């Protein structure tokens, strides 16, 4: 972790020091969603349902941003073609 700041160095009013995107919050997953690209029909229902905006659509294929995915499994549950499987993290 970087050097912690003292209270005199902090901006007033509980302002965060970094963008929230810089705090990686996906490190306590138990299961990770893995997308089978052969089965995926690119309907993007997973993108719609993901509560953490961790499904990434780059215009050609769907992928998962594991920095923020908590492994809740909603995407796998909603996928109409069962292209997403939940794999235990080691």
């Amino acid at each position, binding site marked *: 972790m970087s050097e912690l700041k003292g209270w005199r160095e902090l*901006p*007033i*009013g509980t*302002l965060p020091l*970094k963008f929230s995107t810089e705090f990686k919050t996906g490190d306590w997953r138990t299961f990770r969603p893995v997308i089978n690209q052969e089965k995926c029909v690119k309907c993007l229902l997973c993108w719609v349902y993901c509560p953490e905006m961790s499904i990434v659509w780059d215009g050609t294929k769907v992928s998962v941003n594991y920095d923020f995915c908590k492994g809740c499994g909603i995407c796998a549950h909603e996928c109409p073609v069962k292209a997403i499987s939940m794999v235990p993290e080691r």
Partner: protein
Amino acid sequence: MAAEKVRGVVMGLNGDEAVAWAVKQCNVDVVAAYPITPQTIIVERFSEFVANGEVNTEFVPVESEHSALSACVGAAAAGARAFTATASQGLALMWEILYIASGLRLPIVMAVVNRALSAPINIHCDHSDTMGARDSGWIQLYVEDSQEAYDTVIQAFRIAEHPDVLLPVMVNLDGFFLSHTLQDVRILPDEVVKKFVGTREPTKVKVPYLNNKEVPLVLDGETPITLGPLDLQDYYFEHKMPQIIAMENAKKVIKEVNEEYAKISGRKYGNGLIVPYGLEDADVAIVLLGSAAGTVRYVARKLRENGYKVGVLRIRAFRPFPIEDIVEKLRNVKVVCVMDRSVSFGAHGGPLFMEIRSAFYDMPERPIILNYIYGLGGRDLPPSTIKDIFMELLDIAKTGQARQLIKYVGVRE
């Protein structure tokens, strides 16, 4: 005070109406409030001002006090000047938001019309509601009469929004004794108040993740910021320190605003933090908050006319607690009776007593300090009782012996 400085018109108002008038003149952007006895008249009068088009305020008639303060938090975070008012159970329902308002450093002003807490239900005055909130990070000013309620609400916006403070302010007035009692209240001209309070200028902060760009500390789409997200063991403590310092800074600001307000109104309240009477030569003194101080001062004046050396210290600012000023004024008094209008169950005396007694710990010589708890649930404190207390204190001063440290005054055995 020079007479020519006294301005404005005299109106027959009760304490609640006086507060509503002050808010009307302070150019408040958002008022979100829920009615509760004895605060209801504030909301009623103010909603009339809104309905009549006399103010441009966005009035939010919310469904609870929790929502009232939440709406004020949102409004203040967006840069608005926000006001709410409540009492007793209503303040209790606001509890978690009290800490959020002060933690986010939002200069909200709230009038609390002091009323006892249930159970049993009671609508009359004591200070148990706001004493419970004394650690919530709000500045607490207790007023003595309706004129002071009006004056203090106006001052409160200046105190709250001062860049060295940025804390919410509670203006506390005694339920029914003030809220429902008609008094001559001098109302300043609108433009004088408007000039005194000005418009809220949001503080600028350097945002680390925007390359230390300076942006207003408000929720604004142009320069988006986040307020009050998660702190764990790493930063929570660091975020509490500025709050502690701001509360300390408030002492100076309350004094300054009190002086500055005297220039536009001809009225000031002691040094802003405490209001002493007769303490130059007093052997004994009563220390208390709120409206009862008027009656105590009346009795003290009568006794002083008869040669008794008695004094009164009214604490106007309970938060921040003006420890230096209190010690300075009371150090030569022989017996001090701290009168609390609330109980801290299981504690060694009432809240005001504990702080004052603790303030004297480091003094080589200190007065005998006693605690008399009075007036719970609106129980009256008549002049005869006050006179008895003063005579008892004079007796203790003579003998140097007090039989009882903590007493409950006016309760039937």
